[in-house]
Structures are given as C-alpha cells and as structure tokens.
C-alpha cells in the first residue's frame, strides 16, 4: 500500500467517485420504464471496495443506506470473487442476502483494474412488480416468503458478451409487466456499465494503490465524523419503544423496543427485547434495521456525515434471531422495509425524547401510506397499477409548528399528480385538500395531514393498503398532543360506508370512492392555559 495521498488528492478522488455514483442514478432514472423509478426515484446507486465496503453513494435514500454495502458483502459469501469476470452483471433480491425486500432488486458489476477486482458497482431499483400473489407484489395477507414474489439468488444475467437470454426469460416469466421489467433490467445494466467505464479512467489516472489508500482514508474520515456526532450526545443508557398497528394477520400492536447505549464516540443499539417475528409481512431484515439506525443517528446528531462504510464502525447494532428484526427466512417482509423501518426510527426518537428533545421532531406520518390500485383501464384495455404513497403532517419541533403534508424520515417519494392519475388509470381525483385540524395541539402544533378522494371509473379495480398509524397515532413530545391517525374510508354509491384497515385487499367497482385521510403531526410542548 502506498503512502497516504495528500488531503487535496483525496478530496479530488472523493469527488470523482461520488460523481460516478451520481451518474449511475441518473442513467437508471432516464432509461427506466416504471413510474416508481422515473418519477419517484425509488432507487439507489453505490460503489464499494473489493471487500464490499461502501465507498460512495449516488442519491442518498435513507432506506437503502446500509443495504448497499451489505448486499455486496453477503453476495461475496455466496459467490467467491474467483468466479467473477469483467463485464459481468449479477442480479439478486434475496432479503437474507444483505437485502430488504423482494421488489428492491440489486445489480452488481465487478470492476477490474490491474488484473483484479478493485470495486463493485451496485444499482438498486424498486421493481413495480416482482410476481407473487398480488399485482404490485404487496401482499398484506402473505404468510410466507414465497407468496411475496420471485426470489432471485445471485444470478449472472449479463456477461461481457451480452445478456444470457434464458436467464432473463426466467425472470421475466415470473413477474408482471415483462416489457416494463425488461426496460428496468437494461437500465440497471447500463448504469453499472457506465460506472465501470468511468472507474477505468480513475484507476488509470491515479493507480489502484493510490485509490485504495484514498478510500481507506475516506472511511477513516467518516468514522471520525460519526464518532464526533455521537460525542454530541450525553453518554448513558436510554430505552425506547414504538408499536406497529398490527402485522396484517389480525392481532394486536407489535412492539419495537430499543436500548440505546451511548458511550464515548460509540453507541450500541440493542433491539433484543423487540417482539417475535410477525406472521404477516411486517418483518424487517437486520440490514433494514441498520439503515434505520444510520438514519436516526444522522438526523439527530450528524446530518453531514458522508455515507460510507466508515460510519458503521462506531455503531453496534444487535437484533435477536427469531425476532421481528431478524426473522426466519421463510417469514414475509415486504412491508418491513418502509413500515417497520420507520418504527425503528420512532423507537430511537422515543428513547431520546428527554435526552435531546430540541433535536427531535414529534411523531409524523411515519408510514408509506401506500394505496395500490390495480385494474383494467376500459379506455385502453390495458392492465394498470397505480402505486401511490401519501404524506401526512410533520411533527412539531421545540421552536416551530410542523408543516402540512410531507413524507417523514426513511422515505421521500413524491406523490403522483391528480392529472397524471386521471390520464393513466381508471380513477378520478375528486379532491385533494388539507385535513384541517388533524395536527396535534401543543406549544407548537403538528402539521395537518391531507385528504385525497379517489373515485373509480372502471368496472373493476383491486385496492391493496399498506398503511401504519391507523391505530397508533403520531406521538406528541414534551406534553404536546398526538396527531389524528390515518383513516381510509370506502364509500359505495349505494350509500354504504365502511372504514378499511391499514393492511387489506378489497375489490372496488365503478362509482366507489376511497377517502384517504392521512395523519396529522404530533404537537411539541404543553399548551399554556
């Protein structure tokens, strides 16, 4: 290993590597077919070193932090580096192989320089369908992993000679919307290829030894940033809890419990006391748990920490095998990625609520608020699936009210404009308005949620819900009141009205209206009488 390059050279290399990861995301967004990728940007890109340690991330999506690096490390446990060749692109989506849930499919390309693997380019994209029991691959009543969709162990789909058509066909035969999926696969491949080409320039210019030394230094820098951030928190042991409404299999709220032990520039997050694995699809992998912890620490103590493998070093994350956050492989997980991950953040905030209240935000709509409409559009006779997430009120802070209608914490996916929905799906939007008065009271008020009304214009549409905070409302802090919980109401033309649960699947007919009311944020501080 060569001597440490000077700090300016390291910074120049950091810019070059980050530019490559950013370019990967742009390539996927431009070329992909599914609205989730192109509009909502539900994707991540990253470079790791030869051992799978994260070097640089493109667009920084909290839910994918920590997943990108573990994917390569777990991949290498199953596929030794000797089996890799230049030009390969491998695909995989197994949650237990460094992953989170089946729809997030990763493409991995080994990057060779000076005769050996120097780095990996990873492109993660949320496919709008990965097969399984329901269109859109969100199966609220899934009771095992195989009902959730097609499981891809590490599979070499591209070599330097091009695609392996048979393998591609196996994948496409097992997912809905083969054309759209093939477009997504090609986009991920193109993204990895562009990273390889750019990295070749960088390695040629500086030499592998200098790059390795620079990467090692970048890891040290992030480690130091993380330790400095942790030192801004008072040392001690703090316990917190938050609850899932239910797991979609009926039953009562499920607890996520954390014991936070802040030491001197290091911290342990022990989730051992969390409830056992759920029957329904609300389990989360330990990799998802890590991503949530990274998010919470960054939000509370160090927003500017550069995301790479170095920031994981001072953190010790413990999950108990058999629990909600370390489930047996046969348990379903699809909702854990964006619902249970948010519970983890809320549990950590709960633990810190009297320690650093001025750094926290009261409870918000920490759920994707997912409504998935599938049906044949009579205008085009095509099967369409609308995957729509809903923000609610932001929690208040010690010095300001919460804002109305935002996506909090682990996700930041945008809504689909009403006009785009009406043009592409057999649905009319009758109203999108603030849900006034839904924010919790307090010295500072929580933000208001929203009300959006969907009216079905086709003969038959299926609705899947994956929504939390219908039962457990967003919490207030320091005496502030909770916000209103989510409420999903089905209104039939016959006058029949019923409330839907947060994890259900229901058939809708022409004229039916779904009234989606999202939660308000929690208030901060007591109202002074």
């Amino acid at each position, binding site marked *: 290993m060569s001597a440490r390059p000077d*700090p*300016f*050279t*390291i*910074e*120049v290399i950091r*810019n*070059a590597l*980050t*530019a490559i990861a*950013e*370019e990967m995301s*742009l*390539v996927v*967004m*431009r*070329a*992909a077919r*599914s*609205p989730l*990728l192109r509009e909502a940007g539900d994707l991540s890109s990253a470079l790791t070193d030869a051992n799978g340690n994260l070097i640089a991330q493109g667009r*920084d999506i*909290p839910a994918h932090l920590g997943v990108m690096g573990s994917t390569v490390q777990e991949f290498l446990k199953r596929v030794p580096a000797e089996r890799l060749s230049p030009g390969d692109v491998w695909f995989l989506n197994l949650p237990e192989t460094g992953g989170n849930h089946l729809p997030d499919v990763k493409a991995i390309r080994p990057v060779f320089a000076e005769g050996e693997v120097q780095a990996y380019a990873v492109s993660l994209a949320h496919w709008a369908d990965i097969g399984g029991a329901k269109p859109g691959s969100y199966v609220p009543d899934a009771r095992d992993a195989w009902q959730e969709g097609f499981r891809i162990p590490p599979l070499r789909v591209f070599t330097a000679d091009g695609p392996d058509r048979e393998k591609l066909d196996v994948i496409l035969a097992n997912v809905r919307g083969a*054309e759209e999926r093939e477009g997504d696969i090609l*986009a991920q491949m*193109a993204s990895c290829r562009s990273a390889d080409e750019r990295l070749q320039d960088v390695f040629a210019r500086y030499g592998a030894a200098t790059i390795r030394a620079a990467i090692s230094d970048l890891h040290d*820098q992030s480690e*130091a*940033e993380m330790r*400095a951030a942790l030192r801004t928190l008072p040392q001690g042991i703090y316990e917190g809890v938050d609850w899932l409404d239910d797991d979609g299999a009926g039953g009562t709220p499920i607890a996520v419990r954390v014991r936070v032990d802040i030491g001197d520039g290091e911290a342990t997050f022990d989730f051992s006391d969390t409830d056992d694995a759920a029957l329904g699809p609300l389990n989360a992998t330990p990799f998802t748990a890590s991503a949530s912890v990274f998010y919470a620490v*960054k*939000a509370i103590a160090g*927003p*500017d920490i550069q995301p790479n493998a170095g920031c994981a070093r001072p953190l010790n994350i413990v999950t108990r095998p058999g629990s909600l956050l370390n489930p047996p492989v046969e348990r379903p997980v699809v909702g854990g990625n964006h619902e249970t991950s948010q519970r983890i953040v809320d549990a950590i905030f709960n633990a810190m609520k009297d320690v650093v209240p001025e750094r*926290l*935000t009261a409870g918000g709509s920490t759920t994707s608020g997912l409504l998935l409409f599938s049906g044949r559009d009579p*205008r085009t006779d095509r099967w369409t699936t609308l995957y729509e997430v*809903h*923000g609610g009120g*932001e929690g208040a802070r010690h010095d300001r009210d919460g*804002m109305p*209608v*935002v*996506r*909090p914490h682990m996700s930041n996916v*945008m*809504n689909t*404009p*009403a*006009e*785009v929905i*009406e*043009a592409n799906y057999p649905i*009319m939007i*009758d109203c*999108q*308005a*603030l849900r006034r008065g839904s924010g919790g009271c307090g010295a500072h008020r929580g933000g208001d949620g*929203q009300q959006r*009304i969907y009216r079905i214009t086709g003969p038959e549409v299926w609705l899947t819900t994956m929504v939390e905070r219908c039962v457990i409302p967003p919490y207030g802090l320091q005496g502030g009141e909770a916000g209103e919980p989510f409420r999903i109401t089905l209104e039939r033309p016959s006058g029949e009205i019923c409330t839907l649960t947060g994890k259900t699947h229901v058939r809708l007919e022409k004229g039916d209206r779904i009234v989606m009311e999202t939660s308000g944020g929690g208030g901060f501080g007591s109202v002074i009488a």
Partner: protein
Amino acid sequence: MMDGSWKVGVDIGGTFTDVIAIDASSGEVRTAKVRSQTSDPVASIVSAYRAIGVGWESVSDLMHGTTMATNAIVEGNLAPVALVATEGFRDTIEIGRQNRRELYRLDVTPKLPPLVPEERRLEVRGRIDAQGSVITPLSDEECERIAAAVVELGVDAVAVALQQCFTNTEHETKLGERLEGSASYVALSHRMNPEPREFERTNTTILNAALMPLTAGYLNELEGAAGSGTNLHLFHSAGGMASVPVVKERPLTLALSGPAAGVAAAGKIANELGLDNAIGFDMGGTTTDTCVVIDGKVQISSDQRLAGRPVRQLMVAVESIGAGGGSIARSEGSAVRVGPDSAGAEPGPACYGLGGEQPTVTDANMVLGFMNTDRLLGGVIRLDPERARSSVKPLSDAFGIPIQETALGIYRVANASMARALRRVTVERGVDARSCALIAFGGAGPMHAVALAREFGIARVVVPKFSSVFSALGCLTAEFSYAEQYAVRMSSTSWDGDRVAELCAVMKDRLAAPIVAAGHDCGSIVTRCVALVRYAGQSDTVEVPFDLPLDPKSLGADFRVRHERLYGFATEEAWELDTLRLTASAASRSDITDLLEAEVSESTMPIATAECWFDSHGALPTPRYERGALPVDWRVGGPAIIEDNWSTIVVPPGAKAWTDATNHLIVEAGDAA
C-alpha cells in the same frame, strides 16, 4: 426625429450592467461595464449609454436582458395574487409533491410556504376530465361569484389554474374573459404551460401573475425613456428576443434572461467556429453557470426550478453550480472541503481587502500568481497578495503542506467539484464531454478552463472576444424567436396524422404572429420542430427534430437511433409522441464575426513576467500578455497568462494558445507535462 444608427445590447446583472453597441453605418463597436443600480433599472441603462457615449436618440434598437424577474422571485418581492382553482383543489399548492428538501436536517422546514395564502385561494365549480370532456359545466353565476370574490380581495393580479384545462381550454378562457374587468392582470394556466401536473403548472401561473404588475411598470417607464425612435426588445429565457407586448403578458419568460443571453452567445460562437458540441462555462464569484450545445443547438428544458419553486416553461438548460471564485476552503478533521460556503461579493475573497479572511478559490489563484497585482480588478479593486497568503496559511499549517501546494490543492479541488457538476450536465443530456469544446467566459471561467478541460479529456478551450460582456453580446446578436410546447401523448399504434398536422399548424401561426407584428416578413420566418418521444411507460423523453409535415415512420426510426445513442439500447416496441415543441425565429440579425473587425496589433511583447505555480512544476517564470493588444494569428505556448481588466486566461505548461482571425482566443489543452 432622425433615427439613430446604433444597435445596443445591454445586460443588467445583479452587480454590473454590461453593454456592447455597434454603429450600423460605420461598423464601430463600443463596450463598457458599469455598476447596476438595482432599484432603478432604467438608470442602469442610462449610465451604460453614458459610458459608451451614445444617447437615446442615436439608438435604433435596444436589445436587453435583465435579472429583474429573477431577483423579484428570489427575493420574494412579488405582487399579491388571487388563485382560482377547481373545486376541491385549492390546497394543491400547499400539498405540493409532499417530498422534503433536506433528508437529514430536521430543523429545516421541509417545504417552502405556498405562493398564495389560504385566504386568497378561491375554488370554482366546473370539471373537465383527462379526455377534455366537460363533467360539470362552468355556469355564468359561478363566474360572477368568482369575479365578485376577486374584487372583494382587492388584488390586482389573478392566476387561474383549473384541473385538466390543457385538454379543453373552455373553462379557463371563460373565466379569464369574465375576470378582465375585475383585476388588471390575469394569467391563465393553459397559456403558460399546457401540460399535466397541476402543482407545477399552478405555481408557474402564479409566478407569472405576480410578476405582471412589476414588469408592466418597468416596461412602461422604459418605453417612455426610449421614445418612439428606439425599437425595444427583451431577451427571454428560451434564448431569443421577445417584443414588449409579449413580455408584458408573460413576464415569467424573463426568468433566466441574463444567463440565457450568455448561453445564446455561446451557441453562436460554437456555430461560427464550426463546433458541433460545446459546454458553456461561466464562472462567477458565487455561482458557476453551465450549459450544453449539442449538434450546434443550445439545449432547452421545460422543467426547472427557480428559488426552489417549479417553473414549467421553455428555458435554456442552464445548470447553476453553487461554486465560484468566492467558495471557501476549510479543513474538517483530516479532510479538506471547498465550498459550498462562499465569501460572495461581500466581504469577498481575502485578497479584495474588503474584510474577508477565509481562504477562497480566488485567494488560491492569487497565491499561485495567476492574477496581476499591478492591475485594478474591474478597474476598481486593488488585489492584495499578502492577504491572500495569510488566508491560506492556516490550512497550510494544519496539513503541513507548503503554502503554494496548499493553494494548488484548493485549485484542484475546486476544479474537481465543478467537473462533478459538469459531468451531471452532460450525462443528463446524453453527450460525451470529451466531444465538446469548452467555451469559457465570466470573470473566473478562463482561469480554470484549461485545468477543467484536462480533467475531462476536453481538447479545446475557447475564450471568446468580448467574454466579459458576453450576455450583452448575446442580446446584441440575438434573433426574434418564440417557442412553445404542447402535451400530445399519442401512441404510434393509434396515430392521428390529421390531429398532429392541425396542432403544428396552429402552433406555427401563433408563434409567427408577434414576429410578423414586429415587422418581419412572414416568408423569412424559420420554424424548427422537435418531437419529445419515448417508449410507453418511460419518463424521460428523447428530443427528435423533424420537418413538417411529420412522417411517423421516420420519426420512429430517428427516435430509436437517438435512444440507442443515449442509453445504449433500443427496442422495436411501440413509442409515444409525448410533446410537440416548435420554435419560430426571424432571420438572424448579425453574426458575432461581423462585429469583430480585428484591431491592429499594438504589441506582442509580454507586459510583465511573474512566477506562477502549476501542477508539479514548482514556480515557473510566466509571461503576461495584454489581451486587447494581441494581433490575429498570434501564438504562444504555456506557461503564459493573457489578461484584461475583467478576466485572466491561464495557459499552463503543455498547452498552446492562439488568436484566430476574429480574435477569439483558442487554447489547445494538451497534457499536463
């Protein structure tokens, strides 16, 4: 009154007003740079005129770019507006797209507050669906009720933005007509942005309405000052000239007026020098603006943001990077960062001696010897090398690296972060930066251009003549042109050739009307057509130029060729015509080359020799040349510095520079030797 013979281009920027003028009878060219008077733009024009010694009466054409609209939006100095939205949708502007600005900063408010507060948001009953059918009619009584409510609010400006209005304009038009007597200014969303996405379209319409009173006031004043002898034109954001009546109705079209003029000039230079692909690189004190010219065409985009607000209209695709000469270098533990903090114009870099103490990129350039201390920057600021050195010293001490190498490090990191931004600009446009020439202008651009070119493998850098009044030059040489686009969304499998032909004909006539009204012959108008095409389900579209009448077969074939080039693959699937974009232009007024009668050389001898530091060379004696004195076909090998009062061109060792027949300076980047 005698008509004057001067054609004048003026760009009123935030700090300086640039002017370039040509006398049509003698061919004489004059340029100047004066301080802008932000509170009184007409006074800025007057002082620019004074600086070049012409009066209103001798000006035949004033072509003018201004940051007035930009500043009003950035500073929130906007007229109060009433919004009329469809029943059930008045909160759309407050809901927005529900994403937050900062992922990890909980202290930052996640969104901007809405442009129109709740009490001025009205809802009107009447509904149109995505196919343009009226679901609920808009009654006369509703129109009356809204008009009365607007009067009650007592606002001058109204924005009307109804759901699906672009599929059927009936309701907006009817409301607009009824509102004419109730408010002085009315903006209708289907005229501003006839495309789906209610949040973005509504914001665009509100911004336009909010700018109308301010702009009308300014233009009336300007018309009064200019009198009837001067033809007034304004530079619009899509890279052409617009007449005063057009701008009064659509002031938002001035949103990128100044930068667009610079981009247009870069596009012209690229065309005149025969460069197919080029990157415009305008580095200033706090920001760096970049743009891309592909196949000789300045790139246009319809989806940009201004001060965090979405703006949907055709504008030159300028990417602004928050890095410039004022970017501050600092250490963070063992790491070093340059920017995003900036010393800005106040206090500015340490070497300006205006109170800045932190080391900036400009201070690094000073330490490296690039800037001439004998010269007053812009004729005003005396540069202080000692202050530059003492600002860099703490970093040098912290890292144990000699001061010049520290400065060199700052210079390299600044280039690397700009390279990262340039990479994004070129990748988004699907162009390989290595195929581009770099056209550098603005104060600091030419100092970094060659190093940046090497970072990318770009072979050639052009520093145009008049580079310091480049936007004004863009104004002077611009053509009348108007552009608009319309969302069509037609699949290749259900092609309706008649509808496309009709849409094109209507757009073409509408675009030509103000050009004809400005006195141009209908036959001299050139129409350029671009189709935005994608595979069904894709988000981004590919720009495919076509000729009228549109032939779907060749459009499909051209689309696949371009898709393959951009993304590395193309399939035989059905495609979709998403949007039609047409641009109508009057014949070009004047080529830049025509303005550039090369002057007789005074001297080719260096004005001085100084020590400069370049990558891995240590100090090298470097001759300095006065740019204005250089003859055509003059050549020099690096290291050399070529300078004038406004900018410094660094030619490092291994590079070669020469002046072409029209006194543009060309640098062959070469390799760092």
